[in-house]
């Protein structure tokens, strides 16, 4: 049998504890190289839609908060359009990048993104997904970046029909992906292990 000539993906390695140097140099005072850290501002002008804060922390298997993680989020604009050349359905809001990157706070472990509530994006079969934020987490001790999603506690009807949430066999685990609304802040704490272990995806 002839083997098809596919290459293998470069294997992942941990981002390590010093990810800030390369990805958010300004937050550790290594300024003067880049004017601004990538992904520091998601809203760049008068963007349409509801402005929200998306916040949370990440906990390890002992319940200790991670203070050296980096979190990236990627989401659609208020109309459900991604600001990406790979978007097929039209132009996204020019004042919203959809991409946020933060090193968690080195004392509290918190991330806090100033962003927009995303609109709904279709699944390949045409069904609409519930509004969600795509999340990627890297840190020391994480060998391959972790993918998860945040959904919204005030979108119960949409969440109930979401094709990705429907893939979760143990329904009580869906709760680990629902960011809880308080005024205009949605909070989602992420648990890497334990009883409340967050659902992570193989995308």
């Amino acid at each position, binding site marked *: 049998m002839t083997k098809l000539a596919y*290459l293998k993906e470069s294997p992942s*390695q941990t981002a390590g504890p010093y990810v800030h*140097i390369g990805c958010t140099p300004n937050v550790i005072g290594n300024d003067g190289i880049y004017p601004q850290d990538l992904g520091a501002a998601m809203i760049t002008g008068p963007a349409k839609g509801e402005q929200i804060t998306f916040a949370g922390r990440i906990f390890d298997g002992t319940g200790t908060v991670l203070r050296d993680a980096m979190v990236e989020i990627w989401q659609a604009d208020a109309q459900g359009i991604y600001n990406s050349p*790979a978007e*097929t359905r039209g132009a996204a809001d020019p004042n919203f990048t959809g991409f946020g990157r933060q090193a968690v706070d080195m004392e509290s472990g918190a991330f806090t993104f100033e962003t927009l509530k995303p609109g709904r994006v279709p699944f390949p079969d045409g069904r609409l997904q519930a509004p969600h934020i795509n999340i990627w987490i890297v*840190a020391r001790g994480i060998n391959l970046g972790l993918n998860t999603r945040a959904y919204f506690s005030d979108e119960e009807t949409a969440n109930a029909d979401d094709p*990705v949430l429907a893939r979760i066999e143990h329904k009580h685990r869906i709760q680990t992906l629902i960011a809880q609304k308080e005024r205009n802040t949605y909070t989602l704490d992420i648990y890497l292990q334990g009883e409340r272990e967050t659902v992570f995806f193989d*995308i």
Partner: protein
Amino acid sequence: MTQHDGAYFPRDRNWHPKLLTPDYKTSVLRSPQKPLISFGNSLSETTGPVFGHNDLGELDSDLIQNYARSGESALGERIIVHGRVLDESGRPVPQVLIEVWQANAGGRYRHKKDGYLAPLDPNFGGCGRALSDDNGYYAFRTIKPGPYPWPNGVNDWRPAHIHFSLFGSGFAQRLITQMYFEGDPHIALCPIVNTIKDPQAIDMLTAKLDMNNTIPMNARAYRFDLVLRGRRSTLFENRLEGN
């Protein structure tokens, strides 16, 4: 024309390091224990942020100069790190934002949490970025980082390495990895390297000395190619939709 814009090929999670790798101790409490949930890619995974030349500064890919005081430069073995970014189908991936970070020639990071006794180099920040061109080609100029000790076993040292972060065209291609240097005896000893089980996979992360691209009397070159996830063709998917 065939459109290669379908779902990404699934990640081979036996090729990548497992999440739980007890010889790398920090992974023990930071690795999810439950199975990951799989689903077919939607636009949430196949789209992603893409960056352009306007996002980059002139010295971003030159770590010898981008933190140096006027008229000075970083100390160490001067090297060029260059290569191509391809996808799993062997196609070049253009416009990939590649971010790198590394220790200085003595193995010390410019980071407040790094307490290693090797001195900082006032002319070295340890951070750079570049964009791949239409052929997937990229290049950096830097100094060779030093190995450094780290608390894991009683006497673990990292091989010299450069951290790499890559943005492809879809968020599902997002990747962070590390580049090692051919011939470094610490590669075989390192618990982080050895989270990867397949020697061929470790070899993919090992840059090769490239004398042909070395600039005589100036800087040696190391060749480092990278591969991002490939994508299915959507030719048949489109036909099925009746287009």
